[in-house]
C-alpha cells in the first residue's frame, strides 16, 4: 500500500515510491480529479519518479562497481 502522500519522498524505499507512483497514475487514469489535486498528484508522482530514478541510478552504479563490466568470460 502506498504510504501517506505527505511523507517526504526521500524517505521512501523504491518499492514504496513506485507503488505510490502506480497508485497516482491509476487514479489519474480513472478518476475525475480537481486541477489543483491533479497538479499536486502529478507533482508528487514526478517527485516519486525522480526519487526512483535516483535509486535506480545508484543501484546501477553499485552493480557496475560490484561486477565490473560483467562481460561474458572467454
Amino acid at each position, binding site marked *: 500500500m502506498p504510504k501517506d502522500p505527505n511523507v517526504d519522498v526521500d524517505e521512501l524505499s523504491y518499492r514504496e515510491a513506485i507503488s505510490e507512483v502506480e497508485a497516482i497514475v491509476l487514479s489519474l487514469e480513472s478518476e475525475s480529479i480537481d486541477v489543483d489535486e491533479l497538479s499536486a*498528484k502529478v507533482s508528487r508522482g514526478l517527485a516519486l519518479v525522480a526519487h526512483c530514478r535516483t535509486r535506480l541510478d545508484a543501484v546501477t552504479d553499485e552493480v557496475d562497481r560490484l561486477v565490473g563490466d560483467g562481460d561474458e568470460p572467454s
Partner: protein
Amino acid sequence: MDRTLTVTELCGFVAGVIDEVFPEEVWVSGSISGLNRRGPHAYFSLVDPATPSDRQRASLPVVLFAPERARVNAMLNRTGAVRMDDGLEIKVRGRIQYYPPQGRVQLIMTMVDPSFTVGQLELARQALLVELATAGLLETNKAVPLPVAPRRIGLVTSSGSAAEADFVNELRSSRFPFQLTRYDSRVQGPEAPAELVAAIAAAASREEIVVVTRGGGARTDLGAFDEGDVARAIARCPVPVVVGVGHEVDRSVADEVAAISVKTPTAAAGYLVGLVEQFEARVESAQRGLVSVAAFSTEAASTQLQAIEGRLHRVTSRAGARADADLTRHVHRLATAARSQLNGLRMGLGVAEATLSASDPHRMFQRGWSTTHTATGQLVRSPADVAAGTTLLTRTAGGSITSTVDQTKTTGEET
C-alpha cells in the same frame, strides 16, 4: 695191505697223491675267516659264505708266507679297493699242499684277484640298492626337513680316530656354538654294522642332525657302509643324516640313502658350518631386505603422495578454473539480470513519468488550455453549469482571469 705204514710214510703218500692231483696252482674263492696276521706270515681259512650251518661248512686253511704276503699286499695297495678282513669274499691262487705236522690240507697262497672281491661287493651293493629303492628308502632321509641352523650334532664314528679329530677341529674352528655329542662305533670289521646301527639310533633320539663319518680306506674297509642294516638305519633316521665316508671314487650305499653325502669328515663339518652360515646370511639379507623394502616403501609412498598432490593440484586448478569461469558467468548473468531489471524499472519509470507529464495541467495550460471554476470552486464542464451573471475564475498558463457570464449557449445552439 698187511704192511703197517708209519705216519710219515702215510703222510708222504697222501702228499704225493695231492701233488699228483693238483700239480699246479688253483684258484679258489670263499670268505675269509679267522684272519691272523700277527708275525710275518698270515693265516686264515676260506669258507663258503652261503652255507646254512657252520658245522657243515667246508673250510680250507690258507697260509700266506711273508714273501707272498708282501707281493699280495703290493697288489692290493695298487688297486686300493680290497683289504683282507674277516667275512670278505676273496679269490686266491695257491698251491694245495698236505701239511704233515698238522695233518691237514692247506692252500699256500701266492696271489689274489682283487677284481673278484670288487665284483662281489658291487653285486651285493647293486642288489641292496635295488631292494632299498623298491622299499622307497633311497629318498626317505632326504625328505626329512633339514634344520635351518642345526646346533645339536650327533657324531657317529670311531672314538679317537683321525676322522673324529678332523671333524671336531673343523667344527670348532667355526665361530658357531655347536653342541657336539659323540656316539662311539666301530666303522670297520664284522661288528661295525651293528654298532653303527645302534649309534645312529641313539643319536637320532637326541640330536637335530646326525653325522656318520670315517676316514678313507680300501673299498673293503668301507664294507659296513654298504651293509643293508646300516643303510636302513640311515634311511629311517628321523633326523637328517650327513654321511662323510672317506672315499675317492665309489659311493657307498650309505651315501645313497643319506640326506647329505660328502667325501670326508672335514667336509661333513664344513657342510654344517655352511648351513649355519647360509642361515646367518639369509637373516642378514632379510634384514637388509626389510630396510630396503621400508626405504622403497617410503620412497614409493612419497612419490605416490607427490603424484596425488600433483593430481589434486591439477584437479583443484581445473575445478578452480571451472569455478572461476562459473563465477564469472554467474556474475555476468547477475549483471545482465540486474541491468535488465534496472532497465525495466527505468522504462516503467519513464512510462509513469510520461503519463504523469501528460496529466500535468501546467503543460495543458502552456498549450492554451484553461480551466474555469465558479466562485464556489465548482469546475465548469458545460454551459449548463452556469447562468448569466455568474462570476467565473479561469486558470491559464500565465495566471487567472475573473469574468462574469453574459450568455450561455450549448453546443448545437451556436450559429
